């Protein structure tokens, strides 16, 4: 399953790259991208683990940039 999420206050490009890196390493993720330009996060992951992965991804986002919000 592939899904896109809007993000708010993603202020630093390097952070976006770090988030992308970390999310890609999550178990069950086929592909992921965090775009600083469009302020969007795309996650392509296995269906059965999807919700858990999104939760993990949101945690990663928070940990890299505390002020950034993922609009789920």
């Amino acid at each position, binding site marked *: 399953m592939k899904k896109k999420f809007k993000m708010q206050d993603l202020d630093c490009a*390097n952070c976006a790259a770090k988030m992308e*890196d970390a999310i890609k390493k999550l178990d069950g993720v086929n592909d992921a991208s965090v775009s600083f*330009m*469009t*302020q969007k996060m795309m996650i392509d992951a296995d269906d059965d683990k999807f919700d858990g992965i999104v939760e993990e991804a949101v945690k990663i986002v928070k940990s890299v940039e*505390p002020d950034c919000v993922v609009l789920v």
Partner: protein
Amino acid sequence: MSPKLKKRRLRIVIALLIFAAVTLCCKTLAHWILSDKLNIYIIFILYLVPYLISGYDVIRKAVINISHGHVFDENFLMMIATVGAFAIGEYPEGCSVMIFYQVGELFQDYAVGKSRESITAMMDIAPEYANLKTDEGIEEVDPDDVELGSLILIKPGEKVPLDGIVEEGESFLDTSALTGESVPQKVCAGERIISGCVNGEGTLTVRTTALYDDSTVARILELTESAAERKSRTENFITRFARWYTPIVTVGALILAVLPPLLLGGDFAVWQTWIYRACVFLVVSCPCALVISVPLGFFAGIGAASKIGVLVKGSNYLEALAGVDRIAFDKTGTLTKGEFVVTELIVQQGRKDKLLKTAAYAESCSNHPIAESIIASFLKETGEKPNAGAVSDITEKAGYGISCVIDGENVLCGSKRLMDENSVECVPCEKPGTHVYVAVGGILLGIVIISDVMKQNAPLAIRRLKERGISKTIMLTGDTNESAKIIAQEAGVDEYHAGLLPQDKLSLVESLIKSGVGNPGAKRRLAFVGDGINDAPVIMRSDVGIAMGSMGSDAAIEAADIVIMDDDPAKIPVTISIARQTMKIVKQNIILSLGVKITVLILGAFGFANMWMAVFADVGVCVLAILNSMRMLGFKEK
């Protein structure tokens, strides 16, 4: 400017004012009040105020991130650098570096926000609502909720929310957001319209033919939005580089701070010098300029392309297109219009209009594409439709043609075979195209020649490609050699291959791609431009696949890397220019950012750079790079 940015601006201004006041006080009053030791602490506290006002969020984030284990976080490094400056007694410097770092960050956020806005505005074709016609009247609903076959009302100036057929009304549509074409297109009842266009003066009632998710606008949005996900090699390189850059510079700073003083065995002053140099390192440790400006450059390039009605599905394709050196074209629908029209009437007997009229009447009941083009041509010439009632005893034989009776006379209309079968005397015709022979009462009236016509801009496109240094243009077609030859000559392509089956096209393209590999030094990439279902595999296989958007089959558009919305081949050279310009700007940014940073690092290590230069190398260069990327938005074809 968003409220958040405004708040930050206010904070920086306040910090700056206090900083200026404190500096002024210290300078003027230094001699007579602040001379003894204790006053050092007073100055320290005085400078701490503006430092905290401007930098408290940096410190806050640094602390949070350290607790999450992110050691190489730019906030943290910035904090260390400024705290370091304070520790060695450089209060004004530590404080001002923080303030100017914040000024740079603010400007950077503002510039990025602005450019993001202007690029997305260029791609902004999404309709917000649809006026649904119901029994109760007009209701404003989400385009997502409109069912297939509903009636919607489009008022003047509104965006067309869904694909459909006009039932009522007349208007001009502005298709520029989709195709880059600035001349409005006239529409009236019975015509198809596509979503994303902007309605002109008239009000239209439209019956929808697609759900929102299947409509043109949703499909285009899907393509452009995913464009940012397909990263170019350059972007991936920058990301990898960034991962190493910060740790290396930070470790360098640590070594610089500790090793020389230990080796040289220095007193407090020596430590002070080397810690200061280490702080310079830390300030330039963020790869932001690169990480922001490179993707922004590509994003702006994609935006510039979409402004002229060309969809690029990812920055990797823009990068690939910049290195394209040979281009192969499909013929029908790509270089030619793909619609058959009457191009010539060869009269054997009587008058031209008689020939066309007889042919049109005879074909009036047929729905063969050739019949349609003859009828269309007749309609265009005379303004009337053939009177089917005047035709009787029609027999149609596949591969031969039609025999019928018009005004009591036997009419034959079809191929040479039909004439031969009825022993009508005629000379064979050598001209390219499809020949329709027309005979009345056993005597040949003449020949109607139907052929595909070249797109107006095809020769121009080929010429412009040559001017841009494309070494070879090739036309591939399944058509006969004669018709291919004419088009190839008129368009001015270097080479053509006719009579190809889809698999032949594929193998030809594969051999072309192979011949491009291994030539030293050059990226000899091959682009293929096509439109049909049978082109899809070739589009997929070539280095850069380009599809014609409005004529093209869904399969071709799906397979393509770049889609030309209005099918104009002259957009190809323009897109190549955009791609090359984008690459140029991206390269300039990489060289600028890296060059300045490395220079400051070297100067810093030897003590020639101060923290001011470091701040410039960090945020200053970043802002310059952003401004440079933004030049792409003003791209004009010379």
